[in-house]
């Protein structure tokens, strides 16, 4: 048990040390996304205020409740905007990092070196997945969620934030596992990047297209699905629908990961 834990730790450290990733590219993309997030937050951060003694609708406890609701909504929209931006970073960068890490390991023989140690193929895939998710999550947190935490004080709906965060985690998991499957099948970094990153960006783009039915659009993007549900943008959307779609996304993630392991086990190195 102790040896197994040691081999996991060794593998994760090796991945972190030798990982192929692009600090400057990450920095530039992060800068754009952070600026985009800040501009979106800026549009929610100033709310008109009008109080009048003569008008009973413009003062009193009811008006206090109205403003509290307005402030909570504007804080929530800022946070949702930030998490949606984080998903765009993840959908773009995570496949790049994972593709290069996995496909390059096939090409330069690093996988063979790893397999000469007492570690399993499952451990190799899982460690690559863990480190990629960790790196990209740090990027997304610094680029999107940190600015929001720094400048969006006021009332917030904690349950809503939790639900959107769960949706983000499920999306990250599914994006990673499908990229791993493509990498194991295609085995060349550039093709894997184009297929995975391009595919996810296309899906995000489709989920933002107005002519497509709002229910289908929401189902294509779990974060948008939960955001729409909480903000009541799609009135037909029920909690059961949200749970079912999130469960479907999780199932896709788990299935693709199992398929990746099966394909990797069959691969001749």
């Amino acid at each position: 048990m102790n040896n197994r834990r040691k081999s996991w730790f060794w593998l994760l450290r090796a991945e972190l040390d030798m990982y192929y990733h692009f600090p400057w590219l990450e920095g530039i993309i992060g800068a754009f996304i952070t600026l985009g997030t800040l501009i979106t937050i800026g549009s929610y951060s100033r709310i008109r205020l009008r109080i009048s003694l003569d008008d009973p609708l413009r003062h009193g406890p009811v008006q206090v409740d109205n403003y509290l609701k307005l402030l909570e909504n504007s804080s929530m929209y800022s946070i949702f905007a930030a998490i949606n931006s984080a998903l765009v970073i993840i959908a773009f960068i995570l496949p790049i990092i994972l593709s290069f890490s996995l496909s390059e390991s096939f090409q330069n023989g690093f996988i063979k070196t790893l397999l000469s140690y007492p570690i399993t193929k499952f451990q190799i895939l899982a460690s690559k997945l863990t480190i990629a998710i960790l790196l990209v999550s740090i990027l997304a947190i610094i680029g999107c969620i940190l600015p929001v935490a720094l400048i969006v004080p006021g009332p917030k709906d904690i349950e809503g934030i939790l639900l959107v965060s769960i949706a983000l985690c499920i999306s990250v998991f599914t994006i990673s596992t499908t990229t791993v499957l493509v990498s194991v099948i295609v085995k060349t970094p550039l093709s894997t990047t184009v297929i995975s990153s391009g595919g996810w960006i296309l899906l995000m783009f489709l989920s933002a297209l107005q002519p497509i039915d709002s229910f289908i659009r929401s189902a294509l993007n779990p974060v948008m699905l939960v955001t729409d549900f909480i903000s009541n943008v799609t009135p037909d959307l029920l909690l059961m629908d949200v749970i079912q779609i999130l469960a479907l996304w999780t199932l896709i993630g788990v299935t693709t990961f199992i398929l990746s392991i099966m394909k990797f086990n069959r691969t001749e190195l």
Partner: protein
Amino acid sequence: MRLGKSLAVFGMVLIIISFSNLGGGGSGTFVGPGQYSGEWIRTGGDFYLSVEPDYQGDVVSIFVLNYDDTLKVINSTSTVNTSPIFERINVTEYEGRIQIIIPGLYSILVTSCVNETGYSMNLKPILPALPFTISGFGLITTGLILILMKKSRFLEKD
């Protein structure tokens, strides 16, 4: 080493962003006796405020209140039981820096005790925005520490 580099790059990005003029802008409307008009603002620090009545000679009163005091004013339509962070009573115009010690939700309220008057209000953030600058420097320091730790480990091995 690479994680350190990434953190350092992000720190730099945050410092650059701390100089961007986001959250500023102008607004304006009419206000009369018994009325307060203005904006809720989210701010991380000090900002410049300028308020100017539309007609020369008109006077307005300006208040900057915290979240709780703003709710009191909405409830009672009076600033009597509040402790404004900033107030100027019956001024023909105002331009200056508003000091904010704790980041959070604040309101800027304008009222006229004499007659109905129009006014224009302009907000400008003070750059660099300190929360971003501090976070940026924090990330650069963490990144550099990680890079140096890695380098010293390589040197020890040699």
